């Protein structure tokens, strides 16, 4: 692919006089966009195609090694493969349970992240002042703490002998134990996703001109209608982007549920790793990965749509 690009580049150079400026510009753009496209095709695209093929029972070619390593590998019985592995995975109660817990954790955590980041962003926009700045600053702190360390800290903070219970027991209250529960996974997910969402929501709301808000105030609009009818609609694109990124990130996370979550039900990210290494069933692991991929694509569609809408609004499309 890259050699073709070089050749066409040389061609352009020789016939430089006859080629219009427009063509030259677009070929330059193409050449500049080539590195990331090629890299993604080589190191992400091909492995994804191979993996999907493997999940359908295509065990030849580049999949041969993994197929010979795994236990219980199923081979395709027709040209397009077989759905036997999908059938086996979807009839496993453990998978259905873990799939639903993954979706529930993703939805709850995303809503919490959105509410928290929006709260901070609106407070900063409407009220301002040092307290709002402190909140906005604190919300970004998790960005600088490695997830492994944060997960471990969260686990210990809410453990049986952790800070919460120790503190409450000073007042004779028997506090909750959230270590090794789904609650801890939600707390951890919110912690790791908050910074990005806050930055997106914050900048989105900040970008709305004062004049519009002032005009609404002059016309007698209260805080609620300013938020609901001006700020939220005008910041909707960055908010959708923040939501999709948060949801996709939580959907596929491994570290937080691995450290803080229960053995069962567990999120799919951890399951995939267990199936792949501990149980040595790579084909089943790939099927689960495909399911996560399909879910994430659904969310990603919203992102693409939001981007498309921005582009359309600005007249680029």
């Amino acid at each position: 692919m890259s050699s073709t690009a070089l050749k066409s580049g040389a061609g352009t150079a020789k016939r430089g006089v006859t080629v219009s400026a427009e063509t030259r510009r677009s070929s330059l753009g193409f050449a500049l966009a080539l590195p990331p496209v090629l890299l993604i095709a080589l190191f992400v695209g091909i492995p994804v195609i191979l993996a999907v093929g493997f999940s359908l029972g295509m065990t030849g070619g580049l999949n041969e090694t993994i197929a010979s390593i795994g236990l219980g590998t199923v081979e395709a019985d027709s040209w397009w493969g077989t759905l036997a592995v999908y059938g086996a995975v979807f009839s496993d109660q453990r998978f259905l349970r873990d799939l639903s817990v993954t979706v529930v954790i993703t939805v709850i955590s995303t809503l919490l992240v959105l509410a928290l980041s929006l709260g901070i962003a609106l407070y900063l926009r409407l009220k301002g002042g040092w307290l709002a700045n402190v909140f906005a600053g604190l919300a970004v702190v998790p960005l600088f703490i490695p997830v492994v360390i944060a997960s471990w800290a969260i686990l210990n903070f809410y453990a049986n002998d952790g800070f919460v219970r120790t503190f409450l027991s000073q007042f004779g209250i028997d506090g909750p134990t959230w270590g090794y529960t789904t609650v801890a996974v939600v707390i951890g997910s919110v912690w790791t996703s908050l910074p990005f969402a806050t930055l997106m929501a914050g900048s989105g709301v900040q970008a709305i001109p004062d004049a519009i808000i002032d005009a609404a105030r002059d016309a007698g609009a209260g805080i609620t209608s300013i938020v609901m009818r001006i700020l939220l609609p005008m910041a909707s694109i960055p908010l959708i982007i923040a939501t999709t990124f948060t949801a996709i990130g939580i959907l596929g996370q491994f570290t937080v549920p691995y450290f803080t979550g229960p053995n069962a039900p567990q999120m799919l990210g951890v399951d995939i790793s267990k199936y792949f290494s501990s149980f040595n069933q790579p084909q089943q692991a790939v099927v689960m990965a495909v399911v996560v991929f399909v879910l994430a694509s659904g969310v990603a569609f919203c992102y693409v749509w939001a981007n498309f809408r921005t582009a359309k609004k600005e007249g680029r499309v």
Partner: protein
Amino acid sequence: MNERRSLAYLASAATLAIALSGCATAAGSTTDSAEGDASSKSLTVFISGDTNVQDLWEKGLIPAFEEANPGVTVDTTIDLHGEHNQQTLAKLTTSVKAGDDPGYDLIDAGFISSAGKAGLLEEATTDTVPNLANVPEVTLEAGDGFGIPYRASSVLLAYDTTTIDAPPETLTDLLQWIKDNPGEFAYNSPSTGGSGGAFVATVLDQYVSESDREKMTVGYEPELETEWDEGFAELASLNQSVFQQGVYPNGNNQVLELLGTGEISMAPVWSDQIITAQSTGTVPDTIGYAQISDPSFTGNASYIGVPKTSDHADLALELADFALSSAGQAIIAEAISGYPVVALDTLPAEVAAKFEDADPSALRPSYYSEMGADMNNLWDQKVPGQ
């Protein structure tokens, strides 16, 4: 315009370079090992196990071996908790079949007997490893002539002596104790460490016939797995009685930590890990340990082996021989409180005295490695959250 054009060339060239760099790294690493072959003697030990085994090699055996053999350098590669054993074995199979050096020269892992049976290892006899002469026949037999036993350990029941006067002595008593004392017992999920694995296997074994159990320790017999059903049901019934109503920590060490902080008062632990933890102070001296009976927790000698296609097989066998020497066995005893595998009378008196009660040849063996992978999977399906 010229500038732009050269920019385009640059971009294309960069793409090529980056795309090729992936291949280049792989090629580079092969060249490295080939060079090392000619100039100086170097070895790589592949370790599949917990951090204590890693320390044993990196801080105990290897420095001593390097000192005794100037000019030799030994590196290690670790697969923590042996979570990728199945893949490692399969990769080893592929490279031996292709006649390639697998990238390591000595393997310390639970799958040595499978690898030996599959014909992937150098034969180990008293000719190549003279110190094998000191190892009891029974211990050698399980190695099949390929695996070199070099240390032993077993899983024990650790308990808090401040709250428990008389620990359960049989498995039945232990299971009853767990139900009578909810929240006080924990074992790690079997896929993350051998101590939890030994507890699971021991509960399963109650319902497996002697002859079938024997088959499951030496080969892959998936059709016998139905005999586990009752045992898994029993384990699932313990969910409400174990730590936090069904929490199974990840790894042997997390269980030791819970024991050390006093969150639980009883757990299955590796003999070597509990002795080491007490000497370093992470677990207080008030924790006692004992073996249960009927059936006892599993334990066994650990075996090392040399891949058939290793480029430095001779040197690797020398290192294995060193581990079996009385100096090597003393290092193992001191560094990780591992049981010696050689006859005790060949060891220095103070080392021998420490292990008078431990007889590695009497330990109950654990399941064959593929059986173990299936046991982990079925446990995960049938026990937590049920």
